[in-house]
């Protein structure tokens, strides 16, 4: 794979003291099981944070709530001070999300998929942005090909390219190294570095702990829907809401 120059638009949203991400007792239930069981954390602007934990830890659920794809069952979550439920439109303008599913249309070409995304993001220079995104993810030669014939890795690259359309202030990456070869993984690492340099906040959920911790300023470990610990810089545990404290009962 030829080396490509990675260009990421610098953060253009207003600089305010509000944290990039703030959650308070955030919980999400699926039926009777809690995918997230009351998480309170704050992530500073421009920080790159690794979300670690085994399958079912709640990493994807947290990212999907921040991306407005899932509603919280309890608690709150905010991006740049905008509530993910009440101000979903403002949140959507600020995020770019790479999920497990590519969200691509098989009967459209690679370029058409990105043009569609650029139109819905309201980009003025859509053609130039699409060409730059395709070049960045190494798919310029495949631009006129229908996505139906793409391998899983190529679809993943194209989904990464779609994230480069627009100027997000928060990038959410769910297993970004999955299905990629060594060049593709290096591309993801390069993109994370570029977002970091551009002042964009990045949350990356990954099973490749060593790889993402090297890139990250801080990390959070989740398991069973609970936030077990945080470390590094740029992330802190929010103050949990104390509903009541039972006083010890003295033995007579």
């Amino acid at each position, binding site marked *: 794979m030829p080396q490509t120059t990675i260009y990421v638009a610098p953060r253009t949203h207003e600089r305010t003291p509000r944290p990039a991400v703030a959650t308070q007792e955030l919980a999400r239930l699926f039926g009777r099981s809690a995918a997230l069981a009351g998480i309170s954390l704050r992530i500073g602007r421009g920080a790159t944070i690794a979300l670690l934990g085994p399958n079912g830890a709640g990493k994807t659920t947290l990212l999907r709530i921040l991306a*407005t*794809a899932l*509603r919280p069952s309890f608690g709150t979550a905010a991006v740049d001070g905008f509530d993910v439920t009440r101000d979903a439109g403002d949140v959507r303008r600020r995020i770019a999300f790479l999920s497990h*599913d590519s969200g691509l*249309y098989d009967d459209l070409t690679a370029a058409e998929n990105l043009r569609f995304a650029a139109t*819905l993001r309201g980009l003025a220079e859509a053609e130039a942005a699409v060409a730059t995104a395709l070049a960045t993810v190494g798919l310029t030669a495949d631009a006129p090909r229908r996505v139906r014939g793409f391998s899983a890795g190529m679809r993943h690259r194209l989904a990464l390219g779609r994230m480069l359309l627009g100027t997000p202030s928060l990038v959410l990456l769910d297993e970004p190294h999955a299905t990629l070869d060594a060049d593709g993984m290096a591309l993801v690492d390069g993109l994370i570095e570029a977002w970091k340099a551009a002042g964009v906040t990045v949350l990356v959920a990954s099973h490749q702990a060593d790889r993402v911790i090297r890139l990250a300023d801080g990390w959070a470990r989740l398991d069973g829907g609970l936030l077990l610990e945080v470390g590094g810089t740029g992330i802190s545990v929010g103050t949990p809401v104390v509903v009541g404290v039972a006083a010890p009962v003295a033995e007579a």
Partner: protein
Amino acid sequence: MSALRADASAALAIARKDAIAELRGRQIAGSTLFFATLVLLLFGFALGPDSRRLAEAAPGLLWLAIVFGSLLIVARLHQLEAEDGALEELARYPIERHAIYLGKLLAGLAAVLVLGGVLLPVVAILYGIDLAAAWPALLATLVLGAIGLAAVGTFYAGVTVRMQAREVMLPLLMLPVVAPLLLATVKATSAALTANALGDLGAWLQLLIVFDVVMAVAGAATYGHLLEE
């Protein structure tokens, strides 16, 4: 860009994307046209060779075939979105929810109009009806009927797209709601084919306009809730 222009641009982009996907994939046209034509043929066999009886039943059979065909159209248009998380991706764009509904409605409308445009001459040939004199009224009925079917179908396809039993649930939910539309389109088509029934035609077309407006506004206002989990 004004909010209205942004909504229109997003809706047209969604409809255009569906049209391109359909023109290349032919996932809707083949099956729907074959199914609807088969329905007309089978009804024709069931009614027998009596040409007068066939001509009387033609408006009802035409619109039943269009309604059945539109079920397949709206279901398939939403299934395209459900594949590989495209619907969730679509819902995450910073666009108004009613623009997504309008885009899917426009795509459905175009497909139902094509279906109706193909079935009208098929009905004329199979059931021995002369459409030449009635075509302006038939065209108006077809357009208004197609808008109503696309408006209701888009909404209920959104309701059922994440259900396991969506193939069963979509007709169960949609058919009772389109019953007034079916009645109005059949009566309007009958009136159009009967030269001395112009008064009736106007009344049925007015009813279709009211149905279309109410369903489209209700769909646009509520469709956004269907996109969230």
